[in-house]
C-alpha cells in the first residue's frame, strides 16, 4: 500500500526527464562527456588547478588579476618571506592548489608597536605564526590530495561598496561560465551565516542569477529554493546589479583566449579601485548556476556550437553576441 502511494507521489518529487530535456537543463553526465571531455584539453588543466600558473598566463595576456607580491616554493624561501612582503601591510597568503577558500590568510594591517600583523578578524598574528602557516601550506595541508604545494602572496582586494549588505562575512564573487570564449551564464555567490562565510551553494550560500545583457539579478536561490531577501542582512536581492558589467564580461571572455579551455567557470571579483579582477578559473564548473538563473545551459551552449566561424570572433563580438541572445532584461534606454 505504501509502495503504491510512493509510486503515485513520484511525479511530485521527481522531475519528468522529458521536460528537463525540453527546458535544456544540463546534467552531470552531459557536462562531463560533451563539454568538459570534448572542449577541455587534459594537458591544460594544470593552468587552472595551479593558481601560480593561472596568474602567469593572466599577466601574459594582460588579464587583470590581484598583483602577485611573491611566491614561496620551498622551505628555505620562508626565511626571505619578510623581504618579499617588504612594506606591504595589506596582503593575503594562499596555497597555489587550494580549493574552497581553505588556507587563505588575509592580513589587513601591521601593528607598528609590536611588529605583528593584523588578520582580517582583527586579531594579531606574530611573525612566527605567519611562518608556520606558510610551512603548513608548503606541506600540503590545504591542497587537494595533500600534495606538497606553494604559497602565493597577493595584494588584497578591496571589495566594491555596491555589494555591502549583499554578503555576510565573505567574498562576493561573480561566476561566469565561458564556453568557447562566449560568456554563457552568470551568477553571484553570496555567503551567509549558514554557509560560514564560504561561497559554497550546497553549504547554504545564496546564489543569484545575473542577466548576461544587463548585469541585473534575475532571481536568487538558497538550498535550491527561491529567496527574495538575504537571510542575514535582509537586503532585497533583486536590487543587486553588478557594476562595470561590460568589463566583467570582457574579462571573463578573454579567459578563453588565455587558457585555451573551451568550457570554464571564471571567478571574478570587483575591486573598488582597479575594477574587475580574475580570481581563479575552474575547469569543472558546477551545474547549480542553472537553478539560480531559472534556465537550462544547453540551449545557450548549442546555439554557440552551431555558430560557424566562431573562432574568428573578437572578445567584444563574443560579448555582444552573448548579450544579444542570452539576456533576460531588456537593455536600459
Amino acid at each position: 500500500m505504501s509502495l503504491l502511494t510512493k509510486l503515485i507521489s513520484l511525479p511530485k518529487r521527481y522531475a519528468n526527464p522529458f521536460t528537463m530535456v525540453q527546458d535544456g537543463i544540463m546534467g552531470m553526465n552531459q557536462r562531463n562527456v560533451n563539454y568538459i571531455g570534448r572542449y577541455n584539453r587534459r594537458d591544460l588543466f594544470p593552468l587552472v588547478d595551479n593558481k601560480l600558473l593561472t596568474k602567469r598566463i593572466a599577466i601574459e595576456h594582460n588579464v587583470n588579476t590581484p598583483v602577485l607580491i611573491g611566491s614561496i616554493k620551498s622551505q628555505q624561501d620562508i626565511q626571505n618571506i619578510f623581504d618579499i612582503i617588504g612594506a606591504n601591510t595589506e596582503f593575503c597568503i594562499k596555497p597555489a592548489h587550494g580549493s574552497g577558500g581553505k588556507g587563505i590568510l588575509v592580513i589587513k594591517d601591521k601593528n607598528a608597536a609590536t611588529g605583528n600583523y593584523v588578520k582580517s578578524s582583527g586579531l594579531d598574528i606574530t611573525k612566527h605564526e605567519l611562518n608556520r602557516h606558510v610551512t603548513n601550506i608548503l606541506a600540503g595541508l590545504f591542497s587537494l590530495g595533500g600534495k606538497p604545494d606553494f604559497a602565493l602572496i597577493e595584494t588584497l582586494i578591496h571589495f566594491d561598496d555596491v555589494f555591502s549588505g549583499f554578503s555576510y562575512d565573505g567574498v562576493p564573487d561573480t561566476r561566469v561560465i565561458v564556453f568557447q570564449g562566449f560568456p554563457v551564464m552568470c551568477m553571484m555567490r553570496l555567503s551567509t551565516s549558514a554557509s560560514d562565510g564560504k561561497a559554497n551553494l550546497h553549504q547554504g550560500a545564496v546564489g543569484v542569477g545575473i542577466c548576461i545583457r544587463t548585469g541585473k539579478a534575475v532571481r536568487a536561490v538558497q538550498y535550491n529554493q527561491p529567496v527574495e531577501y538575504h537571510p542575514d542582512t535582509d537586503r532585497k536581492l533583486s536590487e543587486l546589479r553588478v557594476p562595470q558589467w561590460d568589463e566583467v564580461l570582457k574579462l571573463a571572455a578573454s579567459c578563453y583566449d588565455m587558457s585555451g579551455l573551451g568550457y570554464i567557470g571564471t571567478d571574478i571579483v570587483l575591486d573598488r579601485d582597479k575594477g574587475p579582477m580574475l580570481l581563479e578559473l575552474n575547469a569543472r564548473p558546477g551545474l547549480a548556476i542553472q537553478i539560480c538563473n531559472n534556465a537550462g545551459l544547453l540551449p545557450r551552449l548549442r546555439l554557440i556550437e552551431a555558430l560557424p566561424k566562431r573562432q574568428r570572433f573578437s572578445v567584444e563580438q563574443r560579448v555582444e553576441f552573448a548579450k544579444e541572445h542570452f539576456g533576460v532584461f531588456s537593455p536600459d534606454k
Partner: protein
Amino acid sequence: MVSRGVFYVVTAILLLTGLLLIAYQHLTFGVPFVPGEQREVWSVEAKIEFDPQGNTPAIVNFALPAIQPGFTQLKQSTSSLGFGIDYIKRHGLNYVEWTKRNAIGAQILYYQADFLVDASAYASSMTVPEIEESVEPEPYATAMKEVENAARSRSADANSFTAQVIRELNQENETSTLLTKEYNRARLLVHILEMAQIPARLIRVLDLEDGRRNRQLSEKVVVFNGTSYTIFDPKTGVSGLAPNQLIWTDNGYSMLDVTGGRNARVSFSTLCNKISAVEAGALKTNVKRIAGDESVSFSISSLPIEEQSLFKSILLLPIGVLIVVFLRIIVGVKTSGTFMPVLIAMAFLETSLVVGLIGFVAIVGAGLIVRSWLSHLNLLLVARISAVIITVIIIIGAISVFTYKLGLTEGLKVTFFPMIILAWTIERMSILWEEEGYKEVLKQGSGSLFVAISAYLAMNSVFVQHFTFNFLGLQLVLLSLVLLMGNYTGFRLTEMKRFKPLVDQIKANRNGDEKEQEAKRLYTELKEVKHDPHQAYRNWKNKVNDQLKEEKDNNSQDGETK
C-alpha cells in the same frame, strides 16, 4: 578524439565476441547457464576371467568401447595384478592388451571406463562394412533364400526389409525353426541381409542400469542405408537404441581374444554417478586437451585448481565494478572513493553481510574518532595516513580478540577487510567532516554502504558466481556495457530530484522581461542557424558590428558631454 562511429563498432564487436564465446562454451562443452544442473556419468567395469593354459604366456586383447553419439568417454583405467598392459591398435581399432609370461590359477582382469551422457556428442567410430560373399551350406542357403524372397516381396527398402526378415524368422514355421536352430539370430540376420546386398553388421551393446553386476552385452544388428544406419534388435525387431544403451563394439572384429588361456568370459557392472554440469564440462575439456586439442576451452576450468580459486574472486570484481558504474552514472549515488564499495563488498563475501556491516561501521566509527584527534596534531599527510592504518589494525585486532573472548568466532572475520582501503576511507570521511559537515559524511557513507551492499548481493548470487566463473566471454560483455555507460549523457536519477524545483520554476515563471520561454526561443534560433549557418552568421556579424559601433559612438559622445 575517436569518432563515435568507431566507438560503437568497437563496443558492438566486444559485445558480440563476448556473447559468441558464451554461446560456444554452452553449446560445445555443455556448460549450463544455470548452476546446479546435473549430468549423468556411467562407470562401466568389464571383468575378464580366464584360466591359463599350462606354461604358455597369456595375451589378452579386449576391444575398447566405441565412439558413439550421446556419450563422451571421460577416462579409462585397468587393474590387473602382475600383467603388463598396453593400449594398441589392431585393424585400426583400439584394444587394451594384457600380457603375462607365467599365469597360474584363475585370472581376473578389470577394465574401467567413465562415460558422460552428452547430448552434444556426435562423433561415431561406426564404418560402413563391405558385403561379404559367404557361402552357406545347404539346406540353410535355400532356407535363407526363401526367407529373403518372402521378406523382399513385402518390403520397400532396407529397413522394412530387415523388419520383415525378423518377422519371418519369428514365425513358427519349418524354415525359421531350421535356421534358428543352427544359427545365432544376429548372425543369421546379417547373412540374410548380405545375401540381399544390404550392408549390415553385428554390434554389441551394454544396457546401462544403476548398480547392476554381471551383465552381458546384447547383440544388435546395424543395417546401413547409404551412410545412415539403423540399429535393430534381431529378436524383437525393435529399431533404434534406448538412451541408456552403450555400444561397446561397432565393428566386425572380436571383442575378446585370449591366447594361452581357456574359458575366457567377460561380464560388466554398471554404476551411475551424478555430477554437476560444470564439473562435467571441465572433465570434457580435459579429455579434449589430452587429445591434443589446445584451443578447446575459454574456461578457467582449464587452469590448475589453485589458480582457479584465485580467479573465482577476481572474475567477480567486474560485476561489482559494473554495479558501481551503474549506480554512479545512471542513478547518481555519491560514494566516498570510487571503487572502495566494491572492495568492501568483496570483504562482505568473506565475512557474511551482517558481521561485515557491523565490523565496517565499528572500524570506521572508531577510526574517525582517532582521526579527529590526529587532526589536532597537524601531521603531514603520509604520516597521518600511516597512523590511521596502524589504528585500523589495532581496532581490528581488538575486535577479533574481544569477540573471540565473548565466544563469537564470527568476529574474527573482520580481518578480511582491506586495511589500507579502510584507512583511506577514514581519512577521506574525516576531511569531508571538517569541510562539509557530518551530514555529507552520513550521505556519502550511507551511499558507499548502499553500493557495497548492492555489489555484495550481486556478487553473492550463486547464479552470478557460476556465470562469471564459467563464461570468460561475460567479461567482454561487461566491458562493452561499461563502455556504453561511459558514453551516457542523459540525466542521473538523483538529478531528476535535484532539478525538480528548477523545472517547476521554469514552468511557473518567466525571467525578467522575457515574453517567451528562453529554451523555446533559443531552440528556434538554433533551427534557423542550422538551416543556413552562413547567412545567419553574416546577419549576426553585421548586427553585432553595428551595435559595437553604436556603443563606441555613445561612449565618445558621453566623453564629449562630460
